Structures are given as C-alpha cells and as structure tokens.
C-alpha cells in the first residue's frame, strides 16, 4: 500500500491552540479573582482529560493484547491520542503548585479531630514530595508506553513486516497491568485523597470505567471529524462504526456496574467513616446530579445504544459520543467538586472557570494530538492486518 502522509489539520491545530490559550488564559485570570475556585475548576478539567488520554492508551493496549485486527484502520488515531500524556505532565504543574489549596492532607495542622488523625496517619504516603514523585512516575510510564507503541507502529509504515506488530502486541499485553495500576493509583492520588473519608478500593476502576468509555467517544469523534484522504473515515465501513458503538454500549453498562457496586457496598455496610462521602452527595443539593447520572449516564444511553441502526450511522454515533463526553464530565465533577469545596450544603454553584478550564485543557489536547497526527500516514499502512481490517465484516 502507498504511504500517504496526512498533511492536513494545520488550521484545526492552530484554531484549537488559540482556543486553548484563550481558555487557559481566562482560567488564569479567574485565578486572580478567586485562586481556590479556579484551581478546583482546573484540577477537575485536568483529571477529566488526562483520564481520557490514558483510557485511549489502555484501549489500544487491550486490543493489542487481544490481537484485534478489525481496529487497525483506526489505530493511528488511537495511538496518537495517548501521546498527549506528555502534554498532561506539563499541565499537571499548576495542580502541583496549587496543591495546598486542593488537598486537605498537604497541611494537616489545618484539620481537626478524626480528619487530622487520618491525615497524620497517612503522612508516609500522602505527602507533597512523594505525591509529586508518584505522579511523575505514572506519567513516565504512560509516556514511555505510548511513545513505544506509536514509534513501532509508525516505523512499520515504511519498514512493514510482522516483527513490529509482535513487539506492539507483547508490550501491549505485558505493560497492561502496570498501566492499569498506575491509573488506579492516579485515581487514589488525584481524586480519592481529596476526601480523607473516602475508602473505596474500587475507586480506581470507577475512574477507569468512565475514562475508557470517554476514550471511545473521543475516538469516534476524532475519526468522524474528517473525511480527508488518507484518514480512517474514508476507509471505514459500517461494521467499524457498529463495533465502536458496541464498545460504548458495553462500557456504559460497565460504568454503571462499578458505580453501583461502590454505592451498594458503602450503603449496605453503613459505616460511619464511609457514608459521609455519599451523604455529601445525597442529602444535599448534589442529589439531583446523582440521579441525573443514573438516568443519563446509564439508563438512556444504554437503551439508545441498543439500536443497531444507530450504531451503524456515524452521525448518530457522533451525537452519542458528545453525549457521553458531557455526562462523563458531570460524573467527574460530581465525584470531585463536593470534596474539593468542603461545602456540599451550599449547593452546586458552578463557576465560569469550570467552563474555561474544561475547554482550555481539552483544546490544548486536541491541538497537540492533531499536530502529532500530521506528517505521518493517517492509518498504519505497514500493518499486515490492515487489509483484513478494511474488509472487516463480522459473521
């Protein structure tokens, strides 16, 4: 197959960069008026988008581990998205600088009673230097794995052959447990430690479930964004759309399964040190948000995604992908904000920096990924299974 490099996307990347600078600049401006609130908004946006990048990495690794062939046509997009983990390492710096405003354990002397005891007990793990070192470690692993997979795949564009496919499969399978564990610990560090009263071993899986689902939504939107020659869309058939839709259906269900499991275990044990996390989200103005998630993050998308016709229609599937990205943000917001603000009774109180931070970080990631797509083939043209993927027709 002829190697056609993708040289478009220049204006998209520039426009996304402008939006990113504007969004992040406005968030910074908000920081001058209300530093704590702007930091909270930024931290939520960071966790949301970074999770999607790692989710995309895990999607690719899981498919490599399973020796999946159908997805080869969209793989270049899927392996370029996680390269943005290098960007997220940089975007983590504001969180690190402002961690005193975000995490209660940074300075236990501000805390009282039980919370202070917990913070001091966890000091050996939850302290600023070790926290920074761990996050650097997670990103080190994600950056290394994503660059190796992307590097081998792009090398194969010109070299061809099966050896580079084997390397990707071996690394995909072999590094999967470590990448998954890094994501679990990142969930513990970035989200769960915001509330010293949250004890949930399933929490990492909860972050993973939502992020993995949102990664499929981003992948669907990314491949549907352009019909330019050499990009996957022009080569895909309805069976590819169907499978991507099936993955969204499966992980809408998986997210609900994990979310409910976490709730049920805490609700049924009813322990005084565990229930405050749910009380803050059910006996307050946050209750409608929880109900919204049950209905619009599970029940409605589940029944809508059951439709075969919808999954085979790229436009309808893109609509559902946007839907998923919105409800996933509501989910992350619902998990983090009541803990960040320590005042769940005072209501949801959204702030304009929530929007600027979300758009700013997201646009930065889009600009980065589109820029990294340029100059390479838009599909892995050297992959021996590409032709099989193009003919994909599950029987």
């Amino acid at each position, binding site marked *: 197959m002829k190697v056609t490099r993708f040289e478009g996307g220049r204006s998209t990347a520039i426009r996304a960069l402008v939006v990113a600078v504007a969004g992040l600049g406005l968030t910074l401006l908000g920081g001058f008026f209300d530093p704590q609130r702007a930091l909270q908004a930024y931290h939520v946006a960071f966790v949301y988008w970074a999770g999607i990048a790692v989710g995309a990495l895990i999607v690719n690794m899981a498919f490599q581990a399973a020796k999946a062939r159908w997805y080869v046509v969209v793989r270049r997009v899927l392996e370029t998205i996680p390269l943005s983990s290098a960007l997220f390492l940089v975007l983590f710096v504001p969180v690190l600088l402002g961690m005193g405003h975000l995490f209660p354990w940074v300075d236990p002397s501000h805390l009282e009673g039980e919370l202070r005891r917990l913070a001091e007990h966890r000091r050996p793990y939850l302290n600023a230097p070790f926290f920074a070192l761990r996050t650097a470690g997670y990103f080190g692993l994600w950056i290394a794995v994503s660059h190796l997979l992307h590097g081998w795949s792009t090398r194969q564009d010109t070299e061809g052959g099966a050896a580079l496919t084997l390397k990707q499969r071996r690394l995909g399978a072999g590094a999967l447990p470590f990448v998954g564990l890094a994501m679990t610990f990142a969930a513990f560090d970035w989200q769960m430690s915001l509330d010293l009263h949250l004890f949930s071993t399933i929490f990492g899986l909860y972050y993973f479930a939502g992020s993995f689902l949102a990664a499929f939504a981003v992948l669907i939107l990314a491949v549907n964004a352009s019909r330019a020659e050499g990009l996957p869309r022009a080569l895909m058939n309805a069976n590819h759309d169907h499978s991507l839709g099936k993955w969204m259906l499966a992980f809408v269900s998986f997210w609900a*399964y994990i979310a*409910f499991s976490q*709730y*049920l275990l805490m*609700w049924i044990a*009813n322990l005084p040190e565990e229930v405050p996390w749910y009380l803050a989200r059910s006996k307050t103005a946050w209750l409608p948000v929880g109900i919204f998630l049950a209905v619009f993050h599970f029940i409605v998308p589940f029944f809508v995604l*059951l439709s*075969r016709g919808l999954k085979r229609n790229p436009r309808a599937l893109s609509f559902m992908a946007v839907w998923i990205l919105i409800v996933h943000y509501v989910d992350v917001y619902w998990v983090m904000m009541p803990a960040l603000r320590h005042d769940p009774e005072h209501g949801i109180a959204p702030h304009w920096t929530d929007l600027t931070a979300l758009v700013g970080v997201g646009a930065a990631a889009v600009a980065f990924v589109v820029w990294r797509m340029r100059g390479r083939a838009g599909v892995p043209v050297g992959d021996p299974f590409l032709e099989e993927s193009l003919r994909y*027709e599950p*029987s």
Partner: protein
Amino acid sequence: MASAATWVLAEFKDEAALCAAARRLRELGQQRLDAHSPVPLHGIDEALGLRKSPVPLIALIGGVAGVAGGYLMQWWMNAVDFPINVANRGFHSPPTNIPITFETGVLLASLSIVFGLFALCGFPRTHHPVFETEGFRTASVDALWLSAEVKAEDAEPVSRELEKLGAVQVSRVPEGL
C-alpha cells in the same frame, strides 16, 4: 395441501456464482431459499434477502422480563409475603434488590437467546429429506450449496435455471421421501 414441496439443491464452485443464483431465483419469485457452506459467505444475507434476525428482540423481551420478574419477586417476598427487619433498612429496600434483578435480567436474556435460536432453527428437528442426497454432504466439507424449497410443479424449471446459472450439479428431493 395444494402441492407438495420439493427441494432443489444446487452445488456451486464459488460464492459469487451462488449469490448471483440466489438473486436470480428471488427475481423469479422463489423466496424460500437457503445456503449451505462450510465457511462464512460474504454478501449471502443480502443475496438470500434475509430479514433482520429477530433474536435481538427476543433477547430484549427476555431481559426486560427477567429484570421485572426478579425485582417483583424480591419485593413480594421481602415486603409482602414474609417481611423481616434486616438492619432496619425497610422491607422494600431498592438497592439490595438490584444485584438479583441484574442477575435474573442477564439469565433470562441469555436463555431467551439460546432457546429462541433453537426455535428459529427448527430444533429439535433431527432429520430433513435433503440429507438423503449423498452429494449434499459435501456442504460440510468443501462445497457451497444453494437450496430452494419450491412447489412440485416448479421443481423442473428451477432446476434448469440453476444449471444455466452455473450449478455444478443439481438434485431434486420431493417432500415425503
């Protein structure tokens, strides 16, 4: 019965010829067609004019019945028939009912798929007259076969048509064989 059915069996060497023959027979008004092959045939669904499988609908009905039945069963047992106070949670306590509701939903959905498929495939029919044709056994080995269930008086013209369409061999199996 107006006229007994006859099965016309035709062997083809490649999938394009078989699909073309299936399309031609449908143009001639023969709707009861089937294809027999040891490997998946691309485009055969469209060539045979198969409608969308009813299995997903059967699974959905089974799943919804499982969810409703599982939930109602627990509500009736725990809140109506034999109320026991467990940790003061209330006799009808929705979260405790969800795991069982999920399980019964999955169970009935999967059983509906299995038995629905059995029913659609004509199970437990163990024998069919076409098995009497010696040559048809190659459908499980290396040959592609098209079968058409036609009225007895149509068997002759359909056979000739299939030969014209490139069938390697054509056999006719009358119903009461």
